């Protein structure tokens, strides 16, 4: 299903898909060889497992961004949505965890994170659709607000009962190399992979997707066939916020287990780059997110093993630098939804 949807979507036919498959395969094999050379089998497994988990918040953020832009609303507030969601999900984990068992607390905390992202999405929709504010400013408002509020209300020393644990998928998890990477992950990571394919299908194969793409490309065309453009933008930007919220919940409930000030660390913006690199498609963005995550995981492993004597600052920046290089080399001419960023005002 996944591959067929990609073919349908790209429209430029087999050659384009083949090109990307070859590129993806090439990168994967090169990455594998490099890792085996440097870190051996154990280290390689660690890098690849880390890649998948590191990619989770990026692809979730990118899906948030692309649902918005496909609907005609540019969202640069993903960073803020993630941060606020991460914070509230963490607080929920702390305080609800004092009265409820962990098994109940964590799902509720995840839902609170998701709801936080969605509410901030609703806020963005209100600013950009109802108030007709500039969407970049709307996004900046969310980022500033989130950073300010979370930094102000955060107090150190809060403790939780625990975080989301890995769920081995039965015998699959025991397959050498592949098992620990793909089939031994915590729940949000699994859910995210499913969401990538669901959203890909939804965008290009369902009524919702067709209408969503139409209001982001040519809203008046949608309006003249009876589609309520602004209502749909509200709905979609709110829904998109839920994805960013899930990314936030991932950070505090699955990856780290606690909150730090400014812990999203630019992931919301990297997610936007990932979205563009992925040509505003979930599967494309997933590939881009994996690439960036791989660089991060690789850099971390390098520091970990102390193999290379490069100052850690440079190792730390390498994922960003390499992403820029890859974007420049292979990004090519990217064309986003035509009406993204424009207010729709029919009369």
């Amino acid at each position, binding site marked *: 299903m996944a591959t067929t949807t990609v073919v349908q979507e790209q*429209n430029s036919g087999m050659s384009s898909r083949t090109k990307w498959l070859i590129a993806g395969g090439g990168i994967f094999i090169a990455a594998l060889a490099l890792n085996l050379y440097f870190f051996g089998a154990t280290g390689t497994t660690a890098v690849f497992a880390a890649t998948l988990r590191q990619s989770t918040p990026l692809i979730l953020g990118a899906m948030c961004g692309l649902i918005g832009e496909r609907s005609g609303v540019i969202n640069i507030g993903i960073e803020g949505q993630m941060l606020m969601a991460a914070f509230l999900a963490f607080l929920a984990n702390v305080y609800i965890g004092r009265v409820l068992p962990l098994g109940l607390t964590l799902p509720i905390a995840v839902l609170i994170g998701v709801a936080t992202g969605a509410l901030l999405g609703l806020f963005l929709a209100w600013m950009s659709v109802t108030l007709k504010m500039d969407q970049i400013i709307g996004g900046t408002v969310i980022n500033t607000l989130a950073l300010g509020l979370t930094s102000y209300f955060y107090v150190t020393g809060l403790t939780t009962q625990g975080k989301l644990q890995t769920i081995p998928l039965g015998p699959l998890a025991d397959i050498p190399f592949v098992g620990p990477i793909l089939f031994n992950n915590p729940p949000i990571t699994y859910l995210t992979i499913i969401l990538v394919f669901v959203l890909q299908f939804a965008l290009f*194969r*369902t*009524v*919702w*997707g*067709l*209408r969503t*793409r*139409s209001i982001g*490309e*040519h809203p*008046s*065309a*949608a*309006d*003249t*066939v*009876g*589609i*309520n453009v602004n209502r749909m933008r509200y709905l979609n930007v709110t829904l998109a916020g839920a994805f960013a919220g899930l990314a936030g919940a991932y950070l505090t409930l699955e990856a780290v287990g606690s909150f730090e000030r400014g812990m999203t660390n630019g992931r919301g913006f990297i997610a936007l780059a990932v979205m563009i690199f992925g040509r505003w498609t979930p599967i494309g963005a997933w590939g881009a997110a994996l690439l960036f995550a791989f660089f991060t995981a690789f850099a971390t492993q390098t520091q970990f093993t102390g193999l290379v004597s490069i100052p850690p600052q440079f190792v730390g920046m390498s994922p960003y630098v390499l992403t820029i290089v890859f974007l420049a080399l292979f990004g090519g001419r990217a064309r986003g939804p*035509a009406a993204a960023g424009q207010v729709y005002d*029919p*009369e």
Partner: protein
Amino acid sequence: MNQNNKEVVLEAQGLTKRFPGVLANDNINLVLHKGEILALLGENGAGKSTLMNMLYGLYHPTEGEIWIKGEHVILEDPSDAIARGVGMVHQHFQLVPVMTVAENVILGDEITRGGGVLNLKEAANKVWELSHQYGLDVDPTAMVEDLPVGTQQRVEIIKALYRDADILILDEPTAVLTPQEAEDLFRIMKDFTARGSSIIFITHKLKEVLAIADTIGVLHRGRMVGTVTPEESTQASLAEMMVGREVILTVEKDPPHPKDVVLRIENLQVKDDRGHLAVKGVDLEVRAGEIVGVAGVQGNGQRELVEALTGLRPVESGSFSISGQDSTHLKPRKITEMGVAHIPEDREKHGLVMAYSVADNMVLNNYYVEPFATRIIMHEDKIDEQAERLVEEFDVRTPSVHTPARNLSGGNKQKVIVAREFSRPITLLIAAQPTRGIDVGSIEFIHNQIVEQRDAGAAVLVVSAELDEIMSLSDYVAVMFDGRVVDVLPRKDATREKLGLLMAGSEIEV
């Protein structure tokens, strides 16, 4: 044809639409019968589109009532109109360029496999079916952005047919079509009404109305000033109703008094955007006090020629001079400063800055000199003053000189350009398609302005795809074919037949 015995499918009574500060439609009554083509004729800004948007549910009438097939209706939004069989083909196509034909057709009324999942295969079949049934010849899997304009229009028609429309509103459908495409469209329209459906056809082209309409409604300044049949009308009578006064369809002008050569083009060669030679060695002279019209089917190098002469496109080889000075490689500003006025082909792209006010648009060619500016400081009072004067003088209908140019109707946009270009003394006027897509009143006005410039001593080069325009304005007619000027005829020798043959590339036996 007598429509009185036929069933009424759509009726409007007392329709009024008020926008802040504007009465766009004033108490309009309209009746459409089964199988009828009703043409709505009117100048730009006469309220044709407003009226249609009300019938399609995009605007809500301030007053008045609508009946569709005998049922009194209040149209909240287009889906209400669509549900009652009303379809509309907008002047600016409402198609998503990056989607396929089939996707565009089903958008808003999708064929599904259930559960909100699209059935694109079924959609493509349906489009094929409709396409065959009405002889529209459209590939459902093609991307809309890859299709020529005429085909895109057919996609719009299929969209309406798909929704079972039997009342079709066509908003200026021929404005973007080649004559051949327009012929095809008329055939499709006839076919459609022969099946018992009805059409409302908005236009300001008199000839088309007489050729295809069963009934003609004429709008003037928001009011329906008359309903006539083609049999009892002539182009002149329709034009008079449209403009509210007698219109002279032929330009009245004295014989020319040509003086020195102003524009001399020698063996000019220019490439088009794709790098192919589009102007393949043109020789032409235009003298002060005469109008040379360049006739030709579009795409025979006229655009590239004009762009080269105004400094917008580099010259490959050859040369041209203005008032005796070689100007082959001069910058546009230098050419402007030599007293060259340019009315560009695409007024929205090259003629105006759409987001700027009327006043600012009127100084685009001299905003940087006295009295409008002293070094880097602009004098808004002087700019506004001139704009007020020009708006008055050129009869530009705009709420204020501070209105953004994009809010003006096509004819008024063109008048802003003409006003700007003629606001200073000129030696050479280069006008490309000066009256494309504008109403007869504005056409008459602009034609008279061009003749006035000639009589004041300017050399005038007019490029137009409308043979009528060439015939009525020119003192000499140059015909372009395949990048060359194939002949230059004095106006009296330039018959329609002869020009037609030359434009098609045939040699004329002497």
